[in-house]
């Protein structure tokens, strides 16, 4: 069960009830960003719409589509901020 660290920013942090980060264990055979997205929405339903927009950065790099993850990878959920 690889353990993934997830960081929440801006609106993502709001809908998770103020969580800055948490860890998620993913099954060995389903250890990728798609599975993580599903797990995050299951735990925090408010993330559903946020994830459609947010940058999903794996180890500080933008990710697109399904990217495999491994133990100690760090995923950041970064929704755009629009205030000014």
């Amino acid at each position, binding site marked *: 069960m690889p353990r993934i660290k997830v960081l929440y920013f801006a609106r993502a942090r709001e809908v998770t009830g103020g969580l800055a980060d948490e860890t998620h264990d993913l099954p060995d055979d389903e250890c990728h960003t798609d599975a993580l997205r599903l797990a995050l929405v299951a735990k925090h339903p*408010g993330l559903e*719409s*946020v994830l459609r927009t947010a940058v999903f950065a794996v180890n*500080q790099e933008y990710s697109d589509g399904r990217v495999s993850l491994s133990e100690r990878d760090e995923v950041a959920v970064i929704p755009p901020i629009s*205030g000014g």
Partner: protein
Amino acid sequence: MPAPSSKRRRTSSSSADADAADADADAALPPAARWTGALSSADASRYARHVSLPSFGALKQAALHRARVLIVGLGGLGSPASMYLVSSGLGSVTLADADVVELSNIHRQIAHRESAVGLAKVASAAATLRAMNSRCDVRTVEARLAPANALDLVRGHDVVLDCTDDVKTRYVISDACASAGVPLVAAAAVGTEGQLTVYCRASAKSVGGVAANTSEKETVAALPLDEEEEEVPPCYRCVFPTPPATRDCASCAGSGVLGPVPGVMGVLQATECIKVLTKHLGRGGGERTLAGRLLMYDAFGGGSMFTHVKLRKRRADCVACGADGTSSGGAWMKTYDYDAFINGNNACAAVKKEAGEEGDGRELYARNLERITPTELREMLTTPTGRGLDVVDVRPRGLYDAAALPGARHVSEYVFPNLWCERPDVMNAAWDRKKPTIVFVCSRGIASKRAAEKYAREIYDEYTTLRDERRKGRTVYGEPELPENMVRILDVVGGMERWRADVDPTFPKLV
């Protein structure tokens, strides 16, 4: 301590005398003996600390004097960004904003004074900037950037600063910059967090605008025009192809913002702008800007207040900065349906919600839900019935602490477990069949409606669970009472804003 100040005065007056003497001597000197340089005498002295900075110097300072920057939004970001750019010696700045200064702006929008409340933000900021630096050409456009005017406004500028607080405008600005080939330094701030990056890049044509005024031939040759030499940064649309749903758009008005946070971001934005403007004068491609990287700031982030992530490359098929978008010169923007695009994510969320609500007994759970006006609430508060009245305030905690109805308690809109446990009087009234009342209240009547529905649904779910247990014979308790007979659930139309308008004008305006 009068001595230092008088000394300073003497020094400054003697240096002014010296300047005048220099000018006289200068005029008298034959051309072969006159000094030459990139800056005038006055500018070289005024910007001496830039001139002496090894990584900056007179050539970059001269480039700043020629540069033209468009700043969209003169709020929390635009104030410090414009003030630092103009004080740094920027040649020309265009300020675009359609808003007027409000009292609640000036805790962070430092270009505006108390006396400017009610004035156009562009007029107020222009006055501040002209007073700071009379040599800067300050122009104002009192209008919102829209698809119809964005391209014309963006063209003719070397860099654009996005300092707006509106999602749609952010896409419009980025699209215009991608189409016109103008680098975009985009910052954002809300709460205690900020973001900053540089989108798009200068096209050969727009860079020429700066270069045309440059006397140094090698400067023009050093411009990074070859796409292979330098990665083309993405545009806003490349990075965020799906706009946020309205409910996910935190604004400073709705979510609050710590005053210095947009200040930090605006100052960083001005710094990036200077780097972009003078990059072609640096050795080896110049200082590395934030193009291709997103900087994130969290004032309350503990050990890691600043972090950044590498962004994706430009999307080849991007409607704005892909080949099709740029080759048309942005003509597509005038027919593009921005409202449909912005609402796309909302529609998606709404359909889902409706589907989820089908067949879950909406009428049943909603039977004890009512909406009341602030005037009706006033009646309830001043006419005790002895049945228990529980006013639940779901506004952000800070607003509740600033001003709340008497007896109201604060509960987060997102988490309100076991409401009744904290109010035995209300719980007892319910058991005594007195049908107590729970009133949800928020700022404008939107969150309170959501919270009332959520609560009604929760207690209805609780009821159906108990009922089903009973029917299956798994409990010794009797038939549970229908929620509609146990409690009234109300929420206040228009929230505390309307309370202020209809009932109590002394209630502070907080949103």
